[in-house]
C-alpha cells in the first residue's frame, strides 16, 4: 500500500525519458521522410488550481476540453478511433475516462474489466500502456501519449496496431485534475 487505497501498481513508475514532436506547416510536413499527421483540434479546460478549490471531487475538466477540441475540429466523440488518456494513477484513468464521456460516471472500472477499451474493443485506450505501464518520465509522459497517437495513425504500432485508426484523441492533465488539454490528430 502506498496511500490508501492506491497500491504500488496503481501508481505510474517515475522514470527517466524524453519525448519530442515536430510541428510544422502542412506544406513542409509532406516533405519529411515520415508520413505526417494533421492536428485537427485542440481544447483546454481548467476547473481549479489546487484540488481543495475543485467544484466537486469526482468530476473535472477533461470532458470540457474534449468538447472544445471536437468543436474546433468539427468532429464527434464517435469519430475517435484510439484514445490516449492521462493515467498518472489508476484513479486518474477512471475519473478522466468517465469525464471524457467514454463511460457513465462510476462505470469506467467495469467497462475496462469487460474489455470495452482493449484493442478490438469499443474504443481502444492507451494502446502503449499509458503512464501506468509505459512509465512516467515527468513532462515527457504526456508527450509519450501524443506520440502513441501519431504511431497509431501511421500504422507503425506493430502488434498493438488498431485497425483503421484514422483519428486519435490525446488527453493530458496538469496538477491534481486541475488543467486538461486534448489534442485530436488525424491521418493525412
Amino acid at each position, binding site marked *: 500500500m*502506498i496511500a490508501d487505497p492506491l497500491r504500488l501498481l496503481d501508481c505510474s513508475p517515475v522514470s527517466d525519458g524524453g519525448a519530442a514532436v515536430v510541428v510544422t506547416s502542412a506544406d513542409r510536413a509532406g516533405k519529411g521522410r515520415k508520413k505526417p499527421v494533421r492536428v485537427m483540434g485542440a481544447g483546454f479546460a481548467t476547473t481549479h488550481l*489546487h484540488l*481543495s478549490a475543485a467544484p466537486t471531487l469526482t468530476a473535472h475538466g477533461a470532458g470540457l476540453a474534449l468538447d472544445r477540441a471536437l468543436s474546433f475540429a468539427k468532429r464527434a466523440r464517435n469519430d475517435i478511433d484510439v484514445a490516449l488518456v492521462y493515467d498518472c494513477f489508476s484513479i486518474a484513468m477512471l475519473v478522466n475516462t468517465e469525464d471524457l464521456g467514454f463511460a457513465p460516471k462510476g462505470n469506467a472500472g467495469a467497462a475496462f474489466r469487460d474489455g470495452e477499451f482493449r484493442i478490438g474493443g469499443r474504443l481502444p485506450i492507451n494502446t502503449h500502456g499509458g503512464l501506468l505501464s509505459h512509465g512516467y518520465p515527468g513532462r515527457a509522459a504526456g508527450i509519450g501519449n501524443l506520440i502513441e497517437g501519431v504511431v497509431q495513425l501511421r500504422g507503425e504500432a506493430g502488434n498493438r496496431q488498431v485497425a483503421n485508426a484514422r483519428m486519435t484523441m490525446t488527453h493530458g492533465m496538469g496538477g491534481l485534475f486541475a488543467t486538461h488539454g486534448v489534442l485530436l490528430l488525424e491521418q493525412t
Partner: protein
Amino acid sequence: VFCYWSRHEIFRPEKRPQSHAALEGRARLLPFCAAHVHFCWPPAQRCPKCHSDIAWKQSEGRGAVETFSIVRRPAQAEWKGKEPYVVAFIRLDDGGRILSNVVGCAAEDVRCGDRVKCRFVETTDPELGLPVFEPEKSTA
C-alpha cells in the same frame, strides 16, 4: 516541513497575524476570501475561486472530514518516520474546504464525515503554524 506558500504575500511580516498567534492554538487564524465566504488552505495570494483579496480571519475551527487517504510511503524526507499519517480534505462549518491532516487518533479509525476540530502545530519556520485536525470527541 518546507512551506512553498510561506513566500506568499499574506505571510509577509506586516501582513502576518501578530506573532502568528495561531501557533498558540487559540486564534485559529486562516486565510479567508470574504467574497466567497470561505477559508482556504494551502494559502493563496488570491482567492482560488474568484481572485479576490485574501485576509486572515478567525475560524471556529470545526468541521467534518470530507475525504482522506492514509499515506504509507512519505513523498518527502520531512515526513519520514511519521507514516502512516492521514491527509484529508476538511469541510469547515464556517466555510471552505481545506487540505490538512487528521491527528490524535489511529489512522485506521478515521472515517468520512467524522467531526473534527482544528489545532495548530509548529513547522520548521518558527513563525508559521500549520493547521491540523483531531477528532472532536477525544478533545471535547
